[in-house]
């Protein structure tokens, strides 16, 4: 099982778009992990003598309205964006798997109640749900993580449930049942591992959306609170000097766009590599 998935992953990386996007994402993750060591300056160091300076040798990506180094803030911002979106999607996936599997496997009243709520939240755009939740929880990173996790919960719950329901009637599951296996065994050893692949691909694509959502909330001042940088908050503060220091808004914008594009490309490559049926047909 694990071997097949590793193989698929390697297959994905070996394609052209998979390779490029994978390399970019790897670099981004390394930058985020090593942010305190990679940043040329502390991200909150104000130097009012060099406000709004264009990119130069001392400040490779220029400085912002307080003379802070934009490169250092971009790197730390990557940390914020990635950690928030990955944590949020992680929570969402785990909760979604548990809820979806329970609903799909057992069905009944519980299934109907959960699905009604899920469909209800799914009928709103994620940004609306997230805004409402942050308004209730209060601005800050914890609020944003919770808001994003709940906003995407519906998607993963539905996906897992559908997978489990179709897998439930497969012959090998019926065989396991007739051998006398318990619910827990069937769910965790046979159903979930087979339902995981599409959920993981969906999670990868959702991470891209979550980065946009995090940036949007940050742009509205609801995400990371100053002086902690996030790409969205950097763009928001950059609007005031759009015409005299465009790099303050353009660079974080570019970072958001590239990250989302590469996440989607990588997700595509992964879909192609994971789809066993397509592979067989090609063979």
């Amino acid at each position, binding site marked *: 099982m694990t071997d097949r998935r590793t193989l698929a992953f390697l297959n994905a990386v070996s394609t052209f778009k998979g390779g490029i996007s994978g390399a970019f994402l790897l670099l981004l993750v390394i930058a985020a992990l090593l942010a305190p060591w990679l940043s040329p300056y502390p991200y909150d160091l104000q130097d009012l003598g060099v406000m709004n300076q264009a990119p130069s040798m001392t400040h490779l990506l220029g400085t912002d309205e307080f003379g802070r180094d934009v490169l250092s803030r971009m790197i730390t911002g990557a940390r914020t964006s990635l950690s928030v979106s990955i944590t949020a999607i992680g929570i969402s996936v785990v909760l979604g798997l548990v809820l979806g599997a329970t609903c799909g496997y057992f069905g009944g009243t519980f299934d109907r109640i959960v699905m009604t709520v899920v469909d209800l939240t799914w009928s709103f755009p994620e940004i609306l749900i997230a805004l409402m939740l942050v308004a209730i929880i209060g601005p800050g990173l914890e609020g944003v993580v919770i808001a994003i996790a709940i906003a995407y919960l519906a998607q993963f719950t539905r996906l897992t449930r559908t997978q489990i329901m179709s897998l439930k009637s497969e012959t090998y599951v019926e065989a396991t049942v007739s051998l006398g296996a318990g619910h827990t065994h069937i769910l965790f050893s046979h159903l979930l591992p087979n339902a995981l692949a599409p959920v993981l691909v969906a999670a990868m*694509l959702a991470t891209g959306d979550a980065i946009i959502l995090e940036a949007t909330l940050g742009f509205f001042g609801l995400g990371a609170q100053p002086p902690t940088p996030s790409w969205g908050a950097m763009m928001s503060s950059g609007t005031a000097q759009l015409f005299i220091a465009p790099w303050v808004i353009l660079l974080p914008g570019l970072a958001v766009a590239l990250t989302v594009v590469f996440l989607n490309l990588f997700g595509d490559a992964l879909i192609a590599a994971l789809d066993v049926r397509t592979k067989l047909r090609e063979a």
Partner: protein
Amino acid sequence: MNRRKFLVSTSMLTLAAGLGLATGRPARAGGTEAVFVLASSEVGAASQDPIRATLLSVVAMLVYDRLIEQDVDQSYHPHLAQSWETSADGKTWTFKLRQGVRFHDGEPFNAETIAWWIPKFKGSPNEYLVDAIERVEVVDEHSFRFVMKRADPNLIYNLASAFMGIPSPKSYDEAGDSYGVTVAVGTGPYRMESFSVGQETVLVANEEYSWGCDLSDNKAAPHIKRLTLREIPDASTAFLELKTGGVGMLLGVPSQFLPQLEADDNISFRSLPGMGVTYLGFNTRKEPFNDHSVRQATALAVDQAAIHKSVFNGVGLESHQFLISSLAESKIDPALEIHHDLAKANEILDTSGWQRGGDGIRTKDGKPLTIKLTAQSETSFKRTAEVVQAQLKAIGMDVEIVIFDNTSVVDQLKKGEHQLAVRHYDWNNADILDWFFSTTNIPYPNSTGWQGEKSQELRDIAMQQSKTPEERVVNFRKYQENLIANFLFAPIHEPVQNYAFNKTLLDVPEKLRGTQLVQASVVDIKVVD
């Protein structure tokens, strides 16, 4: 949101934006029309009734005339009152009115109007303006007398305020509660055609106008015949509207936009000295700012010069006391002014038992020096908060910034939940000290919660026992010196008032008159052909 939905929604947005730009109303539809954008501090005025409103916009200055006008140097000039004199004891004021003045509804303006008008303030939020007046005596059709309960040298300032624009008695009484919303009738250079709260007000020139005050070159009807005043709360949006010609003039431009304005050939701007001060307000009822030494150290840690340079682009003045610098009351003992002194700030905290920990943050009795700094979401407030955050780190204070919209900030202040807040006021009179620091105004507007017996005693003397303007200046100086010694605020900055306009649409006089860009200057603005 999947990718397809994302692409569809972004392309819809782009399309919508494109269409919006294409169909946007041009600002110069006719030869003598103009569109102004109200300053953000005036956005949301719910009524144009000067007697009962608590927030008025420039609209009130254009629809109504006042007895007296105030100029940029804080001097007073006759308008509907041609002349006035005060008795030696300050107990009677006699006014001579201008003749031939008519309201928009055709009613004459005379001494009877005043006799109707002053009692109307009773029970309104603006009652304090005329509180010192016992009664109005009509001398003849064009002169009257105020008989005073007590001498009030500040009455002249009140008479020049926007809240003392004179409405038509007939229209006022007829309209009842809806006055100021559906109808607003004065003697001013503009009639109000329509008013929708939070959106826009449309004014048309009063062609019969011939009683302009001596601050204006144009004493007759204004040059702009149809004036729309739009309310755009977001400064960036307003700025883009100005750049693209959607509006002719912005009545308030945050300083951070000035460099961009200067770079644009079509845009020019005018400035007037500041009307207000940006400051940090302490909540003395909550830890740690109930401690005098923490307040003092915080006030001394604020580097006004750095904020002046970074947040305000070097425009305006640094503030070292609470009042705007054009007021005589602001000239307090220089030794008492609050100036940046990091070494002293640290020394004060050291000696009062706040020890620095390994992370640079101070603690006392196991409690860390961690505070919340409340600021509203406008750019200049947010940026001030960020610079202050970095400056207070230097004295070992860990500052968490909390950003709210203006209404929520005021809510928080009213509940006394804040610790430290970035605040700004616009008021060109020393009685602002009473407003923000009198014990009678706790919890709001006195959100410091300060209860000092000596302070209140000095406040009473300044507010109620000053007989002449000179005496009032001395008394208010003493009052402020007491407040400063208690470190109830940390003054930061006195911004200038910036007005930006599109040169291809409007011709604005080089030198503006009046304390703000109000009636005296608006009637002189011409539309470029």
